[in-house]
């Protein structure tokens, strides 16, 4: 049995791959197709409502069964994540520890020289 986190990821991947809204049954069929694992619709609905609570999908209540659409595209999410990582405010620095921070091209050139001049 896949963990809830992995399920959330595969459900989200599917929703991102589709332009139109999807229903829990679409998701169930897709996951059965892909991993040849049968999931109960209730499990799919649990995953979808968790994703909704986290603000990744929006539920459309106008139709029955309810349709789900992604709030923003995958690329937008990656971009905002990277923005958070690359921002070098001290606020961020305390939250995550980056391998190397931001430099200017001049500074980078000086660093390169240190390696070449060995």
């Amino acid at each position: 049995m896949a963990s809830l986190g992995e399920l959330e990821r595969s459900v989200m991947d599917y929703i991102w791959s589709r332009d139109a809204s999807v229903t829990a049954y679409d998701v169930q069929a897709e996951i059965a197709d892909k991993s040849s694992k049968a999931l109960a619709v209730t499990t799919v609905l649990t995953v979808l409502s968790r994703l909704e609570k986290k603000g990744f999908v929006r539920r459309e209540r106008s139709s029955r069964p309810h349709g789900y659409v992604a709030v923003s595209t995958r690329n937008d999410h990656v971009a905002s994540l990277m923005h958070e990582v690359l921002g070098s405010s001290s606020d961020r620095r305390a939250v995550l520890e980056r391998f190397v921070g931001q430099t200017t091209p001049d500074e980078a050139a000086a660093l390169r020289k240190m390696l070449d001049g060995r």
Partner: protein
Amino acid sequence: MLAASILLALLAVALAWPVPVILARARWAPRAPALALFLWQAIALAGGLSMLGALVTFGLIPFGPTLLSGAGKFLSELFSGDHSVNAGLAYLLCDCAAVLLAAHLIFNLVLTIVSAEQQRHRHRQLVYLLASPDPERPGTHVIDSAAPVAYCLPVGLRSMTVFSAGLVALLTADELRAVVAHERAHITQRHDLLLVAFRAWHLSLPWFPIAYRAEREVEILVELLADDRARHLVADGTLAAAIIRVAAENSVAIDSSAPLPRQGSATVATAELRVSRLLSPLPAPSRPTQLLVIALGIALIVAPAYLLVFPIYG
């Protein structure tokens, strides 16, 4: 308790200005980052203790000859409403200031921890959805972005290291191992706790120039410590090459998109220090120096505690 109060105040002033400046300039610090970190913690702890202690010991002078008897009398007066001690306004103001300062420091620490945890939690959720776990490196996630970044996200016991696809493409397998080792050192040595504590200290005393300096120094020392850990697993030159390549590539990325953040020069100073330490390693300070630093750190913590419990009568 007046003598104790004066001594504590002098200690607080020394720890607020000259001592941190000397430590920040100490040449031995990059050669013994763990020792320097120990001393920074001792300075922060002793500084807070002596600041509060000076206020408390002065404020309790009318209430009793020692801290304990004074505090007991003060509290019983406060709650019984029987005001037999005629304490001057200056003493009472000091008591208020001590309580306010202690509350302020604790409140800021809690606030900083909670907000960092919330941000990490949210970030972690995004990484889980957007990045795929690296099958070759457990605990590592690869995010599909061209900018070469690597960072670790300490969240409780389930910390994660995140790489971008750009980083994996940029570095050799050995250099990637160096990055993993560096980030893993941050996680196993719980550097996040240190960073949050010093950040809280800085936030609660923003007008204190030294609080910012201490935060910066601790950030740098933590990087050096993680480098030293990584050196056990990879060659010094490999780690240096990884640092330089990532720094160079990041500079290109930022050049074309956003204006340079203010901390740019501080970062490069750190990168330079890290690289030069790796390429031309200096020996650790001599044993006597190390012992001296340890003794100094212990003395810094013990002195204000001693003055608080056994005030000099006078």
